């Protein structure tokens, strides 16, 4: 009998439950095995970089919220740092501390979401997801306390913050710090040694160390491959040099290692928040900055360790009130370029798990 077979080209996305937004994978399958995969993106392009050129420096801050909407605080921070570098603005120490607290809270919230959706991609019926959203909700409540917003915070300003912390903030953070380790253990009980999780994610979507570096991957994707690289350590900003924390790294660079790195980073973030809240200095939270900021001619690049990797911001000034050029180095986009190398030859279910473990935000990829 002569059976004729042909590969099946399948369009996963842009409307697909586990493409985390509007991502499209043009996968060619031989049965269940992926023989070719082409990532297609750009469905969420809003031209943020171009829009920023038409706005004043201050008006761009809300735009950065919309880059990676699950970690708006980090986006605020990187842009604010770039403009402060450009205009030479000093930031009070209290504001720096609060920025660190915000960035780390944001990292926890973002990693919780990453792990939760990754568990969903593995096929759990929303249970870890709901558990993690329960805690993410508490962090979002904290952000709502300080900024009045639950998703797009618009909280940081040049030279500090828009306003000081409310009185009920610090007790709420302390409460969170107290309960969070218990919850983390709960997640680990559910996922860490679950046979099916191990079978589905160990050795799946391996990103070799060399390839990770050559593809300039960053964040948990890079650290999962065993590279000890964290902007908070190698090029400290916002007083990160004063805080004590570790950089967790993986060994093999598979999906499971990336998950472990994220969970460990949550613990480290809690440690940083603990230190930052304990010696929170008193004083101003905002230095004097002209309302209509006109930085001198020049350019500035700032980078921070956002939850998804190295988030960079490049601002060029021509001396007017709006940026001449505004560019974002989006970690999601650069990490996503490794996807094809990671999933070739795996099954379609593995591709979903690997994709989930990269943890991208399409709003940041497409900008």
């Amino acid at each position: 009998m002569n059976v004729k077979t042909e590969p099946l080209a399948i369009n996963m996305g842009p409307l697909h439950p586990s493409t985390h937004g509007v991502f499209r994978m043009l996968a060619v399958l031989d049965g269940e095995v992926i023989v070719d995969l082409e990532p297609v993106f750009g469905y969420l392009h809003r031209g943020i970089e171009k829009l920023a050129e038409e706005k004043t420096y201050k008006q761009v801050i809300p735009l950065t919220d919309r880059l990676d909407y699950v970690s708006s605080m980090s986006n605020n921070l990187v842009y604010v740092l770039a403009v402060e570098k450009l205009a030479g603005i000093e930031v009070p120490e209290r504001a720096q501390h609060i920025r660190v607290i915000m960035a780390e809270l944001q990292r926890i919230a973002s990693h919780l979401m990453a792990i939760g959706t990754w568990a969903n991609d593995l096929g759990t019926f929303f249970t870890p997801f709901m558990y993690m959203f329960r805690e993410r909700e508490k962090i979002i409540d904290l952000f709502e306390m300080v900024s009045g917003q639950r998703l797009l915070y618009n909280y940081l300003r040049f030279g500090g913050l828009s306003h000081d912390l409310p009185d009920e903030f610090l007790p709420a953070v302390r409460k969170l710090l107290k309960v969070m380790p218990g919850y983390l253990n709960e997640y680990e009980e559910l996922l860490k040694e679950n046979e099916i999780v191990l079978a589905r994610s160990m050795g799946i979507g391996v990103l070799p160390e060399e390839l990770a570096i050559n593809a300039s991957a960053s964040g948990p994707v890079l650290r999962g491959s065993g590279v000890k690289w964290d902007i908070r350590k190698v090029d400290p900003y916002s007083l990160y040099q004063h805080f004590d924390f570790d950089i967790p790294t993986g060994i093999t660079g598979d999906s499971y290692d990336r998950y472990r790195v994220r969970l460990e980073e949550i613990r480290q973030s809690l440690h940083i928040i603990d230190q930052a809240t304990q010696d929170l200095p008193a004083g101003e939270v905002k230095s004097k900055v002209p309302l209509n900021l006109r930085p001198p001619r020049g350019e500035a690049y700032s980078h921070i360790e956002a939850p998804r990797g190295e988030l960079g911001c490049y601002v060029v000034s021509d001396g007017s009130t709006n940026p001449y050029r505004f560019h974002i180095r989006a970690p999601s986009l650069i990490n996503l370029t490794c996807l094809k190398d990671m999933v070739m030859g795996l099954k379609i279910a593995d591709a979903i798990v690997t994709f989930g473990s990269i943890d991208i935000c399409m709003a940041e990829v497409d900008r």
Partner: protein
Amino acid sequence: MRSFINYPPAPPDWPGGYWWHWLVFTLIIIAFVMTMALIFIWYERRLVGRFQSRLGPNRAGPFGFFQPVADAIKILTKEDIITSRGDRVIFWIAPIVGFVSVVMIFAVVPFWEGAVLVDLDAGLLFVLAMGVIPSIGIFMAGWASNNKYALIGAIREVALLISYEIPMGLALVGVILMANSLSLEGIVQAQEIPFFVLQPLGFFVFLVASLAEINRTPFDLIEADSEIVAGYNIEYSGAKFAVLYLTEYVEALAASVLLSTLFLGGWRGPILPPVIWFLIKVMAMFTLIVWIRSTLPRLRIDQMMSFNWKFLLPLALINLAVVTLVVFSSLPGWVAFISGSLVLIIYLALWSVIFRRGGKFVQT
């Protein structure tokens, strides 16, 4: 209680003879299946909600009890779309094939002593045969949809069918040996001690194979919504989707009913009336299934097949050997219990080693 339903060895002296029995029981079974399916939908959503630290549906009626009814009204009033390039006839027949054959299973299930539509001598064979037909319905649905996701789902179903059906059948052979009967009534009568005590291995194998048969987590590859969106039913809408959805829950009901009939002693139990015991056991089994669903992730297809062939099949064979030994050498029941439990514990302890190796070997 027993005189209420007059189960006839010969047709009774009612006008119409055996047909009365047939009519009454058919109505009872349809009412039972439909009501239980709706209760299951509600129960599962509430229970999963509790497992996930949320409330679940709580608006329609007390404790959201009428939520399935509201859903049914919504789903039946939706537009019924048929894919233009699909195979219309098969697309139409597929949900019916699955639903009818699953409901047929209940024809041989005793609700209490003598309360059974037909006490077939080959009842278990009938159950096995009817349990397979929904897979054909699923394959028809996936094939006729003319959708790539649906096709992948359908092909997965066929690939899985062969793997889980064999351990399942072997687990049932143990039951047959011990009960010395193929009729479900006879099996329940034989369970002075419930069979899940006497053959824990068989219970475990049958439970896992049932999960695969009813496409529940961790074996819900057919409609894996994070991979192939909704699998075989992706193109279905309106009343046809409602039937497919209902079929899934009726399958879950059938699995719970069979688990409680074959291994938990069916309607047997002290004090309470038999039918209450029956329902309690069915709900307990369904709770277990929902619990598994809300805890475990999904297996990959090759892992699922290696799991079934390399883990479940040897387990079923060991169970068969133990049961054969116990039955033919007339050993006391506790021997069966202890040996079965020991094997199960050792096997589960070795699970990770065996399983991961299995996953490694089946690479294409």
